[in-house]
């Protein structure tokens, strides 16, 4: 356990000092600050910010994460040559990447809202859900980044796969769902669509947020179905639990790959 925490701690320290993470923080800071200034109220700013988070967090996390894991390959080998268990090392390396990315996102979004006093009771809850959903997406896509970098030996190819995974989840998925719905228009599609929402972490995060805005119908077909079937708490809890699985399963697979890998 202390090994894991130690490796996490040094990972956090290394990234917190990187200029790159500062840029990532400032990006969200500027987006939140800008949206707060130009929107009539905090709720509208949060709604726009949701789109930004759902688009940017998966992309940056998976691409930066994959490049980072490749870059840390030789140092990882040096750590593996120390008397440490691989499972502890993996968890430490994973958290050492996911935690600073999530911290950057949280700070970048929350500080402008706090500064503007826009975090009124109603918005504060939504803001918390936005930060939580962003952190969950960070956790999911960091795990996927580890999986890609561990399984694909060639770096360029690995980054290509990472971009492909992002394109699939963030852009093409809703289109594919719509296509299926159109193809099977004569059949009841609500349950299959619900299952498809559960199979995409970006959709899950979207649903989790849009259930709070009461605007699910505005943002994609899958969100609308989710709200109709599972509005309110049931939907939120189900989406949250599915997101948790989306973190746990890739992390567990990554652990397994890391434990058995020849470096």
């Amino acid at each position: 356990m202390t090994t894991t925490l130690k490796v996490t701690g040094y990972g956090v320290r290394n990234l917190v000092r990187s200029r790159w993470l500062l840029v990532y923080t400032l990006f969200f800071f500027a987006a939140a600050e800008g949206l707060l200034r130009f929107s009539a109220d905090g709720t509208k700013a949060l709604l726009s910010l949701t789109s930004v988070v759902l688009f940017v967090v998966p992309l940056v996390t998976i691409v930066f994460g994959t490049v980072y894991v490749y870059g840390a390959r030789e140092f990882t080998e040096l750590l593996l040559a120390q008397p440490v268990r691989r499972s502890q090392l993996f968890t430490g390396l994973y958290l050492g990447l996911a935690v600073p990315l999530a911290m950057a996102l949280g700070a970048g979004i929350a500080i402008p809202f706090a500064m503007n006093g826009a975090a009124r009771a109603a918005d504060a809850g939504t803001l918390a859900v936005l930060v939580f959903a962003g952190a969950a997406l960070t956790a999911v896509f960091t795990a996927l980044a580890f999986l890609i970098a561990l399984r694909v030996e060639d770096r360029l190819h690995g980054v290509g796969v990472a971009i492909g995974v992002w394109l699939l989840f963030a852009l093409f998925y809703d289109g594919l769902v719509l296509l299926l719905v159109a193809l099977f228009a004569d059949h009841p599609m609500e349950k299959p669509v619900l299952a498809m929402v559960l199979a995409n972490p970006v959709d899950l995060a979207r649903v989790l947020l849009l259930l709070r805005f009461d605007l699910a119908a505005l943002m994609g077909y899958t969100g609308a179905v989710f709200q109709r079937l599972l509005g309110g708490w049931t939907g939120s809890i189900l989406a949250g639990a599915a997101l948790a699985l989306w973190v746990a399963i890739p992390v567990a697979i990554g652990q397994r790959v890391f434990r058995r890998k020849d470096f």
Partner: protein
Amino acid sequence: MIEITGLDKHFGALHVLRRLDLHIAPARVMAIVGPNGAGKTTLIKALLGLVRSDAGSIRIKDTVVDGDVSYRAGIGYMPQIVRFPENLSGQELIALLTHLRGSTAPRDEELIEAFALGAHLRKPVRTLSGGTRQKLNAILAFLFQPELLVLDEPTAGLDPLSSSVLKDRILSVRGAGRTVVLTSHIMSELEELADDVAFLVDGRVAYVGTLFDLKHMTSQTNLERAVAVMMRRGMAA
């Protein structure tokens, strides 16, 4: 010190180590040489547990390498190149490894002084030159006074002064009874350092013995030519 028996390893269709047997005696410097792709790196990584063998066994002192990690507390590893985390300082890396090794033994800081590296250890790694990073890499291998040192091309990237400092250190730890396994493409360097040579061809040990015997057997006066003769024979075989 090290007993390797029947070590076998495939990477997919590639048969990298073929039932390799090798004995490495304590308090000696063993050089692993051979053509590219002979399995040198895989052998070293198997010693460190970075690569899992398909068959065969490795015993280091009294421990069989089979998944238990504690034996690595007795090994210092210097990889050929390391990209250290850019924003950490040498001191932080030393602190991290000290913690991971649970090491409370007195540290071997001779190399830090000999390399005059003290001030550089406080700076972030990204500000250090390639040579300085390589010195840091060497320091980390020697720091915890391991009984076994595994050095992969240790002088690559070092200037002549630092390179001779490192070579002196290798000889002095050998003199203190510790074992060194190293690879190098620089035969003159091996000639200076090695007591024994293991010559790998196609994942097997084609020759193992003292440096002196190898030269004698090939009727050559220096190691480079002796190894060249071995490589020609290896290709002919």
